[in-house]
């Protein structure tokens, strides 16, 4: 019985510390960088640090600003996610995603960039807005 209790406590503790992304609460959560209320389910990004801290962003611009000011941050992240423009309110890995840049895309902070999990959809969408296809290295300002 004592063992069971211990197990319960241990599982509870590890459970509390699990490092998991958290869905956006639109209309409630704030962007970490610009302090705007998150509203547009087509855009956004989230990082989860290895310690389990969660930062939410409304636009790729704000994510980049965070990554650039917190220099060591990227190594300490367990998740680096962006919202899939097509699905809306669903995350996909930022480093694997396909990005479409076009001034016709109006995101909350004028980043003009939409993220997609599938290359095919990204290309199709790019055609409709006269955009250019990009990868993470290009949109994160490393180049």
């Amino acid at each position, binding site marked *: 019985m004592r063992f069971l209790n211990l197990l319960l406590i241990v599982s509870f503790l590890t459970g509390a510390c699990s490092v998991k992304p958290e869905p956006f609460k639109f*209309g409630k959560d704030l962007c970490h960088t610009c*302090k705007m209320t998150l*509203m547009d389910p087509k855009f956004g990004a989230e990082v989860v640090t290895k310690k389990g801290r969660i930062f939410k962003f409304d636009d790729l611009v704000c994510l980049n600003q965070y990554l650039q000011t917190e220099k060591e941050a990227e190594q300490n992240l367990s998740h680096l996610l962006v919202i899939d423009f097509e699905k809306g309110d669903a995350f996909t890995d930022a480093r694997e995603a396909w990005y479409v840049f076009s001034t016709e895309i109006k995101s909350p902070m*004028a980043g003009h960039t939409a993220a997609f999990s599938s290359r095919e959809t990204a290309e199709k969408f790019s055609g409709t807005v006269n955009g250019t296809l990009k990868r993470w290295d290009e949109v994160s300002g490393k180049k």
Partner: protein
Amino acid sequence: MKLFLTFFLCSLTQLATARTLLVGPAESIRSLQKAFALAADGDTIRLRQGIYKEGTLQLTKSITLLGENYPVLEGEKKFEILHISGKNITIRGIHFRNSGYSAMNDFASIKLVDGSHITLDQNIVSNAYFAIHVSNCTYVHIRNNRITGIPASEQMTGNGIHLWKSSHATIENNVIKGHRDGIYFEFVTSSFIRNNHSENNIRYGLHFMFSNDDSYMQNRFINNGAGVAVMYSKRVRMEKNHFEENWGASAYGILLKDITDSHILQNVFMKNTVGIFMEGSSRMEITRNRFLNNGWAMKIQASCDDNLFHYNNFTGNSFDVGTNGTMVLNRFENNYWDKYDGYDMNKDGIGDVPYHPVSMYSVIVEQNPTTLILFRSFMVSLLDRAEKAIPSLTPEHLIDNKPMMKMLRL
């Protein structure tokens, strides 16, 4: 003389050709679409009372469209109702109802694209996604409109009056309720927002982004989700506005983010969680405002510098000023603080010892928000007293050197 006469007669014929077309269920022209096709520049169309279901109407001619007793243009929850591009167009007295929703495009009841000198006056817009959407226009006048959205869900609601990449716009005497942002400006310059009433919008009553050289005056922003946000802009004048009842963990009277060289004059901040929240802002003048009954009158982040706060009244606020740092690069002068309890021995109307607007407890709360539960407890008042006598934790240079003894008449 002959030449003059010819000119005169020519201009007369010009006048004579400007016709008035009547459109209505009992008229010879029954649809607005047909009227738009028949009309020439300079014509007036009078729309009789009735309900018109015409999908999306395109208007590119310089005409005046007048509604009689608010005829209804019905969008059937599928269409954008009126699409305008061109110049010298007036739309007055029409009820736009139930326009469509699109996740990808910003569907709007009235959409203005690439236009100039367009007036939207005394219209009613109800149940819209975006109500009025303006892009790439100059000299647009939007006045006396009543805009009411139904905030079904947060993501399904667009902005009331949305301007993008425009200049010289005037937004006057409108009432906007139940949208995402009441009035939204992005890349809009040299424009006025005056005497509007923006209430119960889901996010901001007014939202400014990258918009320089604008001013907004005499507006009332009441009970919006997060108040008003003015961001990434220069040379903005905010005058005589009312910011009221913006309550919530992330709600502010005004959220100022990266604003420079701007003025905040004669506004009233009443019953907000935070009256002014300021981050990354510099060279601002904040004067002759009234801060009444707010949680925090102002929260000034350490990233702000060179701002001047003078001749303001602070009354009935739980905290006067909150800050997250110890560096103080802003000036406070000649404000009235109701919590000031110094004397005025030389009777010049100015307190003899400086006032510290940041209380000990507000520093503690800033670092550890849950301690708010101890608010107004005996321990906290004791701490605040002790801190007043021997300052240790509060920023020692954040002081008003000339606190006023009497409330300023504003």
